């Protein structure tokens, strides 16, 4: 993947988030503050705008700028969380004009670590991490087993989707949903859902 491709994928992610904005907000309404879709769409609209002005051969730059745009415009927890993840991925890919699958996986891992640190969170708390961590694990295993790019990304999507289903079965102990306590059971996590959407777009494009 080069810079042109990454910009293209981010633009498609922005379009997807805009398209799913109402659905994401709806998911956030029983267990959160009904703003996930609106916030994410606002953030990615700014990312879209920034991408148009971006002229770089550095994939790390693109991701870092994406993260900064999200931090300053999202306005909810997904701002600092996704923002930190993209910025960490950007740092991991700094100076690279092309990104290989192992490099992507390394950057993805750095992004996840960033989210864990920012949110003082881990898996099993009904957050985006419940889709991200299984996706990363599945992708690492598939890449090691087959070395096939498409299969690797497809395995990540399947694991992330399963992760979203898993969030329906557990009680939220982080974020606004933790105030809802055990009444959060039965509802899927909006952050895990938006992440899975992003990965689905990426998997179609690689």
């Amino acid at each position, binding site marked *: 993947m080069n810079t042109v491709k990454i910009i293209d994928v981010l633009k498609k992610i922005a379009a997807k988030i805009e398209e799913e904005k109402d659905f994401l907000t709806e998911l956030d309404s029983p267990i959160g*503050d009904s703003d996930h879709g609106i*916030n994410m769409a606002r953030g990615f609209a700014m990312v879209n705008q920034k991408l148009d002005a971006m002229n770089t051969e550095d994939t790390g730059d693109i991701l870092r700028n994406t993260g900064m745009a999200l*931090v300053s415009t999202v*306005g*909810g927890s997904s*701002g*600092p*969380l996704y923002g930190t993840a993209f910025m960490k991925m950007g740092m991991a890919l700094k100076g690279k004009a092309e990104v290989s699958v192992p490099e992507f996986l390394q950057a993805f891992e750095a992004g996840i670590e960033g989210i864990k640190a*920012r949110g003082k969170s881990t898996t099993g708390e009904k957050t985006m991490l419940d889709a991200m961590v299984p996706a990363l694990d599945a992708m690492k295993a598939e890449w090691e087993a087959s070395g096939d790019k498409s299969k690797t990304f497809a395995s990540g999507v399947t694991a992330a989707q399963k992760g979203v289903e898993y969030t329906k079965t557990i009680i939220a102990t982080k974020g606004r949903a933790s105030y809802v306590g055990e009444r959060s059971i039965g509802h899927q996590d909006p952050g895990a859902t938006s992440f899975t959407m992003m990965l689905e777009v990426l998997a179609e494009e690689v």
Partner: protein
Amino acid sequence: MVGFVFVSHCEHLAESVVELAGMMAPETPMAAAGGLEDGSFGTSYDKIREAVEKVYSEDGVLVLMDMGSSVMTTEMVLEGMPDKKVKMVDCPIVEGAVTGTMDAKVGLSMEEIISDLEQVGTIKKL
């Protein structure tokens, strides 16, 4: 004098904390960073950064937050100003604001105020 920034998802809530604390400590520098630029609910990186800059002096600034993204966004603002004397405090925002700004008014240092504020959440009202 130590300055204060109050971060909330709600613009009015943050502004009201400034008003309430200002009743007893009108001399203490305070700034509100509530809601998004357009006044809707959320936390704004730029509003927080500007609020810190507005009340900043070499005596330092303490930031009190409500919850969730207020805390995480503030954390990112502070990471962006590593040379500044500014810290987040983990305490209830209203009670902490009143206690902290009164402390600042009588000239306590940032460290002394922090240690006072750490007790604020432990005091029972009933």
